[in-house]
């Protein structure tokens, strides 16, 4: 079953673009990555799911139900972590979390304390006094405490130190194993690569590609570095080669095409070393943005 179905979703803020004709589905149990630079429309998309804003055209369904018409009902099972941290003035962490829990039809007390322990969150402090990273932790616990079926994470790791990021990823994976579907927006590619099974790439408000992470890495490019004493980089200027760079004692380039052809080309010369790697998502990504 598709947890999220969006069809030609479009949002304009007056004349300025939010997103245009965005369509995709997210299946049950998936960890779906949503990648794009700042201002590409990631937050706009998530805020449309929650009916914080309303679409100019197109539709979005969550759990098979229209986001606007059944808003309150579907939000019962959504956990949302906004990209910006928020706080009510003068409120203690525990007060806020209990307030959050009071909206759901189940007892969240146990899970609340578990999560606070994992994230090492001091429940007695006032939210105003917390650092940015600690406020972010409040946001995480708040988003997870009712064990939602769908998690919407909008740049969840910004402001967290690497150790906390790791803890957060573990938490998200556990939630996923429990059956939760995760929609994970980020501009940091490494973390999406680690977490997600599928990824959508958004650029200037439009989806430019949706792919399996594995195919994205496999089918596309190889990153090849050849080391040799005397090497004329011109011999690699053939079809399928891009980003050819002459380095100290060698050349590096990306290759897409018949791997045998490029192997022969490398093998004809006396070389000292060769490395062939999967490009990181980052490198693929930059390619999309050119």
């Amino acid at each position, binding site marked *: 079953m598709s947890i999220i179905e969006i069809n030609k979703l479009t949002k304009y*803020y007056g004349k300025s673009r939010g997103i245009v004709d965005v369509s995709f589905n997210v299946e049950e149990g998936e960890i779906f990555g949503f990648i794009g630079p700042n201002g590409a429309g990631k*937050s706009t998309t998530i*805020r449309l799911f*929650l*009916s*914080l*804003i*309303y679409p100019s055209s197109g539709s979005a369904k969550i759990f098979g139900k229209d986001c606007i018409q059944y*808003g*309150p*009902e*579907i*939000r*019962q099972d*959504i956990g*949302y972590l*906004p990209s*910006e*941290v*928020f*706080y*009510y*003035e*003068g409120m203690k962490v525990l007060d806020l979390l209990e*307030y*959050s829990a*009071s*909206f*759901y039809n189940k007892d969240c007390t146990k899970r609340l304390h578990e999560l606070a322990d994992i994230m090492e969150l001091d429940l007695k402090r006032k939210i105003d006094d917390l650092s940015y990273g600690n406020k972010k932790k409040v946001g995480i616990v*708040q988003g997870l405490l009712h064990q939602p079926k769908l998690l919407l994470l909008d740049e969840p790791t910004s402001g967290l130190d690497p150790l906390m990021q790791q803890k957060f990823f573990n938490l998200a994976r556990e939630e996923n194993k429990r059956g939760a579907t995760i929609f994970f927006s980020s501009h940091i590619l490494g973390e999406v690569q680690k977490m997600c099974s599928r990824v959508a790439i958004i650029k200037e408000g439009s989806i430019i590609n949706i792919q399996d992470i594995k195919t994205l890495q496999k089918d596309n490019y190889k990153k090849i570095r050849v080391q040799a004493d005397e090497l004329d980089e011109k011999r690699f200027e053939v079809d399928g080669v891009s980003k050819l760079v002459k380095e100290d004692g060698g050349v590096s380039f990306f290759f897409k095409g018949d791997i045998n052809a490029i192997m022969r080309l490398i093998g004809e010369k006396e070389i000292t070393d060769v490395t062939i790697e999967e490009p990181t998502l980052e490198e693929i990504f930059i390619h999309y943005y050119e």
Partner: protein
Amino acid sequence: MNIYQHEFKMNLKSVVIWSVSITILLLAFMSLYSSFAADAELLNQMMDKFPKELLMAFGMTDMDMSTVLGFYAIVFLLCQICLAIQAANYGFSLVSIEERELTADFLLAKPVGRPMILTNKLLSAISGLTITNIVVWIITFFGIGIFRNGREYDTRTLVLLLLSIVLFQLFFLSVGMVISLLVKRVRSVTPYSMALAFGMYVLNAFGNMIGEESLEIISPFKHFEPTYIVKHAAYNLPLVLISLSVIIVSVAASYVLYSKRNILTPV
């Protein structure tokens, strides 16, 4: 219910501060009454010497300041200004505070509809205003009891005057709320609420001064003018109905606007 409780708690401090301030204001001015009343003749003579336009601006013409209610009407006008600012404050911040402090992303992502949120918030603000209202009642009766120097007054008229507070507060609350939903963003509440409260006050003062009735029609300071109520021992009913209609329209429009509103991320 949880939203109501939360909102009420968040607002309680402000309610207490306003109530205490108004208490001090009322008691301070009412305590002057005994000395005023003692020299009633002198006072009325002095008032006659003021330019008529000035007295009109403050709604103080044909007012016998030596009577209990004549004097209290002037004090009540000052109290009205405070009540107006307080109610306008709550109105303007009711919804806009969530967008300013990013809590809209918290609250609106919860499984509740927007009309429900607005209803809870509105009821919580009204509860706060009602507390202040009750304080005004108590302090008024208490103050008059102490400072009236054995002079008589008509309790029914006083009750009528105090009863006007409810609609007066609702006017500023609902108008503040609807304006905050009509504009794109309320960056700071105080300038808006000051402008609304003093704007309405000045409009009435100005209208009284130049005798231009059309200016008075939109100002609740005219609709619930204390000197009118004291003099006639009744409301100016057509004007009260204007206030009531404005409240109803503002509240209805607020529900529509809020339900359709795009909650933008702060820049």
